[in-house]
């Protein structure tokens, strides 16, 4: 009998028993050695992060008058006072303006720099190193230098423009309610765009050259190649970079504090600088804690999306 004429053997599969869902406890028991290795790090995190976190939440339900130093439980009064005050909403608008503005422009500038430096050219290494300088300069040094450069009365920028006849009065930026935030955002963008450049430069290396070549052969324009090939490939990196930028800017303290202190007239006051003022100038630790908890909840939400983005395409590990 030819093989082709042989009757097909019925392949009977033995019934597969569906294993019972493993409990967390059982999983931990099975991987006890793994948990033992991470236990020291977990303990450190518990002490350094967990304890202050719990303490801050607890403190946020207390009044802490500076006169006595005694802490008095006052329920949600701190939260009510913060959320009902006109100052909170004004500072919230400042914070949104600062965070979104800094993130958006740092991303655009950083992406542009990454694209410009993606293709090799003579001196590319030197240019890349120069563009990294703002990122490596300490924030404190940057704040003081920029404050001097932008000083209304003897700043470099104002002085140069006046000597060239471009303006005839001092250029008022940091002392202007209208211009202080755009000015601070510009300085922050200068400081941050190299981070975006580095992240996206690494991402651009992973874009398959073959796909770009195929697109070119098919007649795709430069923009089409960028939008339909490059960007989709960088989606994950873009998301992570912008999330990190957003969270970092929401927490950003040094530049604003050193350059303007939140002024003039609270025009550059952010959540984080206000928390500092409430805690260390007004000695209202309870209220500052409540403000910190509100900020923490927002950061937690952002962190959730960050983790989700990170694990989005990662294969689920089977135990």
């Amino acid at each position, binding site marked *: 009998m030819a093989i082709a004429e042989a009757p097909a053997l019925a392949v009977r599969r033995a019934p597969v028993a569906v294993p019972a869902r493993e409990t967390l406890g059982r999983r931990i028991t099975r991987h006890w050695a793994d948990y033992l290795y991470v236990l020291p790090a977990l303990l450190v995190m518990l002490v350094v992060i967990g304890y202050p976190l719990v303490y801050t939440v607890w403190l946020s339900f207390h009044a802490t*008058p*500076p*006169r*006595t*130093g005694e802490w008095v439980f006052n329920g949600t009064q701190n939260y009510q006072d913060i959320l009902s005050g006109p100052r909170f909403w004004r500072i919230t608008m400042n914070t949104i303006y600062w965070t979104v503005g800094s993130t958006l422009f740092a991303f655009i500038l950083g992406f542009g720099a990454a694209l410009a430096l993606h293709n090799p050219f003579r001196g590319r290494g030197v240019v890349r190193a120069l563009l990294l300088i703002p990122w490596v300069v300490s924030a404190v040094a940057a704040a003081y230098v920029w*404050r001097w450069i932008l*000083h*209304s*009365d*003897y700043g470099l920028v104002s002085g140069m423009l006046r000597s060239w006849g471009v303006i005839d009065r*001092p250029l*008022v930026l*940091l*002392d202007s*309610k209208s211009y202080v935030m755009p000015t601070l955002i510009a300085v922050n963008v200068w400081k941050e765009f190299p981070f975006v450049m580095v992240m996206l430069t690494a991402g651009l290396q992973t874009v398959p050259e073959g796909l770009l070549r195929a697109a070119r052969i098919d007649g795709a324009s430069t923009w089409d190649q960028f939008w339909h090939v490059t960007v989709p490939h960088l989606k994950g990196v873009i998301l992570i970079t912008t999330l990190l930028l957003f969270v970092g800017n929401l927490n950003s303290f040094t530049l604003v504090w050193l*350059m*303007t*202190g*939140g*002024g*003039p*007239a*609270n*025009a550059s006051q952010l959540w984080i600088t206000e928390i500092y*003022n409430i805690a*260390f*100038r*007004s*000695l209202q*630790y309870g209220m500052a804690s409540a403000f910190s908890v509100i900020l923490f909840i927002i950061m937690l939400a952002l962190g959730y999306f960050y983790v989700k983005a990170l694990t989005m395409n990662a294969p689920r590990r089977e135990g």
Partner: protein
Amino acid sequence: MFSHEPTRNPLIINRRRLMGFLAGAVATGIVTKSEALAYLQDSSAKTGVTAEEWNPETIKALAGTREVDTEADLHALVPETTEGTIQYWNVGPTEPDPQITKDLYQEFQDTFARYYPNITLENQNVGYNDMLDKIRTAAAGGAAPDVAKMPILWGVEFAARGDTSEVTLEEFGWTAEQFWPGALKSVTWDGKLYGVPTNNETMAFIWNKQIFADAGLDPESPPTTWADVVAYSNQIKQETGKNGYGMVAKVNAGNTPFRFMPVMWAYGGSALDEAVDEPTYETTMINSPEGIAALQTYYDMYVRDGSVPTSALTNTQTENQDLFIAGEIAMMISHPSEYVAMQGRAAGATGADKERADQIVANMAYGLIPEGPVRRAVVFGGSNAHIMSDAAHGAPVNRDAARALVAMLTGPEWSLKNNWTDSNPANLVGFETKWMKQRLEEIAFLEVTTAMLPYGIPFPVVPESPEVMNIIVPEMLQNALTETMTVEEAANDAADRINALIASR
């Protein structure tokens, strides 16, 4: 015109002659008694510093009349063999400070080590704008130093919270008569002493005679009233293009209330009621008609006339120094050390910059701070030494070693030397030493700031003072100067915030 020097020149008016003239004027009905008193009103009731006892003539007469032996006095109090480690935090000299200030700062530490070879002094120089936050945080965390020397405004909040130890003057070998009453008041809380004054000072008015001349003003005649300051500032701006008055209005900077409160008090307002003879600190006068008038002077200079630096909202006195030595501002308020600082800057300049800086130093002049409709006023400033509590320190403080350090800090020699260029010894015996005589000879304009002492008003001695002076008052200024609020609204807003603080006690 007005002079503080003793003189036979009938054309020179000094305070004694002025008092005589005013007495005659009142008798003949030329001026009313209240007008005369307002003109002469000083703040001696608050500080115990009377013009009769403390003026350039008496101070000169006192200097060099007593010998002190600091080493012997200290060892009689705390034995040389005392052992231990002492952490000492203080607001020490910074880069712009005169070299002699830095040298004496180091000499103090070296001398203490020599007097007490078995005590390790861990000295920490903390910046003025950082010290308060640092020590608050440290005290809350049980990590405060053993001894802290803090500006006069700060100590009371620590005393209220129990972060400082109760002390007596006797344990350092002193008596109450050796200190001005106002200085002792600044270290008293709830009837107990919690520190010892190290130095007390007031500031003076400084102007550039050359800019005055260029603007058509008499270079020898500074403004006598704050209304004059506004007018002179505007004239200087109009005639020369330079800024008139070196205004400081930064938030969270101690320089701001030290320069604005003299204006507020001169007009009859105050942050709480610290300017009245018997303050209760239970009410605010910041939005009284007088307080609003004081704020209006700042508004007029910054907004109406544009005669002060635009950067005033973010300037401290350090930035003012740059503007003054560059010849960009004509007037400012500061310590006698400003002259020494300007000399130092001029010495470091080169070329055309040096020539200009030297000219500015040569044209620098000091005078009394202008007066207002009610009084002439200045902040009664200084520093105090505190032994922190065991709880704030996080461990028992080495009391003997701490006593030795505080006794040396507050003794006649070092309460003077540690404040060589910009302050006065809080220990009044310091005025009698040979070093005081040397200072009077070496430091230009020292007698002018000393002459301001009778007009000194202390900041409110309440724990809420730092928030009032470092945040509420500067934010009131910024709200008015940026026209976020009208002058009256800004004053009312500040009053509401101060009242809320009082209510929360």
